[in-house]
C-alpha cells in the first residue's frame, strides 16, 4: 500500500519536475531542435586498429592482437557556458570495430543552442542494468549481457598475446555495484570548440578511441598477470584507465 502511494507520489513529482524543466529550458526565441553527429576512429597508439591481423605493443612492452573490440556509449549530455545541460534521452549506442556503421551515429532533437561541453558514459547506467528486457543497442542478443551475474558488459576486448598465460586475452569490463562499479562518465575536452546546434546545421564531433589507454594511464595492466578479466577488481582498474583518457575529441565540425 505504501509502495503504491509512494510510486503515485513520485510519479506526480516527476510530472511537476518535467513541467518545471520544460519551462526553464525555454529559449527566449524558441527555435527548432537540431542534431549532432558523432564519428569515432579506433586507434592503437598512433596506428589504426585492424582486427585480427594488426599487431601492437602496450607501453609496458606486451604484444597483442585484437579480434573483438566493442563498447557502449550512453547518456550523452551537452553543456552550455552558463552551466545548463541537456541530456539526450534514450542515447544508448553499441560501438563495434567489426561494424563500421556503428562508429558513426546521430544524436537527435537537441534544443538549438551553443554548447561548450560534451559528456557521456562509457558503459550503461545502473538503472538499465536491472530494468528487465531491453531492445535496440541494449538487446541482450548483442552478446554484451552477463546472464549468471546479470548486467551489461560495457567494454569487450578479446584477442591474443604471447605474454598471456594461455595465449588469449579476454577483457569483459562491466559491473555496477560497489566496489566493482565500472560505469565511467567522461567529458573529453572540445579543445575550445563550440558545438552550434541549429535546425539547418549538421555539426559533428570526431572522437578517437585509443585501445592502448585500456592498459596504461592510471594503472599499468600486464597480460602476464591479467589476461582473463570478467568484472571484478581488474575491471575496475581498466575502467579507471578508460576514464582517464581512452576517448578524446579529435576535432569538431561546425558544418
Amino acid at each position, binding site marked *: *500500500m505504501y*509502495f*503504491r502511494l509512494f510510486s503515485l507520489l513520485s510519479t506526480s513529482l516527476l510530472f511537476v519536475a518535467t513541467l518545471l524543466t520544460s519551462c526553464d529550458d525555454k529559449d527566449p526565441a524558441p527555435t527548432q531542435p537540431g542534431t549532432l553527429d558523432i564519428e569515432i576512429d579506433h586507434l592503437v597508439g598512433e596506428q589504426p586498429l585492424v582486427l585480427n591481423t594488426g599487431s601492437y605493443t602496450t607501453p609496458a612492452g606486451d604484444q597483442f592482437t585484437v579480434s573483438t573490440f566493442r563498447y557502449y556509449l550512453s547518456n550523452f549530455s551537452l553543456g552550455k557556458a552558463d552551466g545548463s545541460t541537456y541530456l539526450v534521452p534514450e542515447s544508448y549506442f553499441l560501438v563495434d570495430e567489426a561494424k563500421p556503421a556503428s562508429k558513426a551515429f546521430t544524436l537527435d532533437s537537441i534544443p538549438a543552442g551553443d554548447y561548450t561541453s560534451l559528456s557521456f558514459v562509457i558503459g550503461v547506467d545502473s538503472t538499465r542494468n*536491472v530494468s528487465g*528486457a*531491453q531492445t535496440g543497442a541494449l*538487446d*541482450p542478443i548483442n552478446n554484451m549481457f552477463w*546472464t549468471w551475474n546479470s548486467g551489461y558488459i560495457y567494454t569487450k576486448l578479446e584477442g591474443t598475446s604471447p605474454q598471456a598465460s594461455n595465449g588469449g586475452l579476454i577483457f569483459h569490463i562491466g559491473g555496477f555495484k560497489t566496489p*566493482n562499479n565500472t560505469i565511467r562518465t567522461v567529458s573529453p575536452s572540445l579543445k575550445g570548440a563550440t558545438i552550434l546546434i541549429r535546425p539547418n546545421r549538421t555539426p559533428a564531433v570526431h572522437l578517437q578511441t585509443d585501445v592502448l589507454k585500456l592498459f596504461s594511464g592510471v594503472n599499468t595492466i600486464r597480460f602476464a598477470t591479467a589476461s582473463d578479466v570478467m568484472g571484478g577488481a581488474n575491471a575496475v582498474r581498466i575502467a579507471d584507465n578508460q576514464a582517464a583518457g581512452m576517448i578524446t575529441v579529435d576535432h569538431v565540425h561546425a558544418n
Partner: protein
Amino acid sequence: MMCRLALGLAGWLPLACSSAEEAAPLEEVPGMVVPANFPAPVYSAEENPPTPAGFALGRVLFYDPLLSRSGEVSCGSCHQQFAAFAHADHRLSHGVDNRLGTRNAPALQNLRWRRELLWDGGAKHLETMPLAPLTNPVEMDETLENVLRKLNADADYQRRFAEVYGRKPIDSQQLLRALAQFTASLTSANSRYDQYARGEAGGTLTPAELRGLSVLRQKCASCHATDLFTDESYRNNGLPGGFAADSGRAHITQQRADRGRFKVPSLRNVARTAPYMHDGRFATLAQVLAHYDHGVTESPTLDPQLRRADGQLGIPLTAGEQADLLAFLGTLTDERFLHDARLSEKDR
C-alpha cells in the same frame, strides 16, 4: 484486508485506459491479485501488464522444448508444477544430453516478490533471468539468436506473438516479457496456513501444527521471515563440507565474507520440493531438521544466529519440536497452486 484488495484493484484501473495491450479482468490471468498477507510486489503488474494472450503465450513457451538446443528440454522439464515448479527427486539440474548442473532447481513461486534470483542472487530481474538457463551449456545450451530464429520460422508463434505485441519479427524483448507473464503469475498464497493467517474459512490448524508454527516463529523466522518465509538475505546455515565446489554469494560479489552464503529459500510448499538446499543434499525434511539440531558445521562465515552462547552450534530441537515443525511445514502446501489447471503443461 479488504482495503488492501480494493487498493490493489484500483491500481489496475488506469492500466485499462493507458495500456495498448488491454488489461485483463483479474480472474483471467492467474496469480495477479496481491494476497492480503503479502507485501507489495517488487515486480509490479504495471511493468509488464498481464493479458490473457500474453500469459497464454508465456505458458506455451515455458513448456516448449523448442527453446533448447536439442529440442528436448523445456523450462518445465526442470520446473514441475506438482513440485511447486522445483525438480522433484533431482539433486542437481539435468539439462540437454543429460548434462548435470551444479545446483538444485528451486521452486518457482511468488517470483514477483523477489529482488534477486538464483541461489546466489546473480540474476537481478525476472525478465532477463531466463537468459541464464537458455544459454547455459549444461541447461538448455542454446543461443538467444537461434531461439529467435526458430520462433520466427514458426507460423504459429509468429501469429501468437503478433497478436500480443503487434509487431514483427519476434525479438528478445517479446520472448522475455512473454515468459515473465507466466513466471510472474506463479503465486502461491492459498495453503491452509494462508487461510489461517487471513482468518478465512478452512483455516484451522491442529494443536501440533500450531505448536510447530510457534517453534518456527521462535527459531527459524529470523531468516525464514514473513509470510513469504524468507528475508531474501544470503546466509551460511552451516552445511558441512566447505564451499570449494560452490562459493555461493561470493561467486557474485567476489567478497570473502560471502563465501558459503546462499539465498534463504522460502518454505512454501516445502513438503513437495525435495531434495533440499542449494545442492539438493538432503532428501527429507527430517534430515533438514536433524541438520539444524546437530549437523551445523563451523566455518568463518557461519551465520551468528547459529552460534549459541555455550559455544555449541545449531538450533536445538527436541524430538517433539521436530515433529511439530514437520506438521506445520505441511500446512504450507498449496494444493490449489500445485493443481491449478491454468498453470499446467500445455502443448500448442
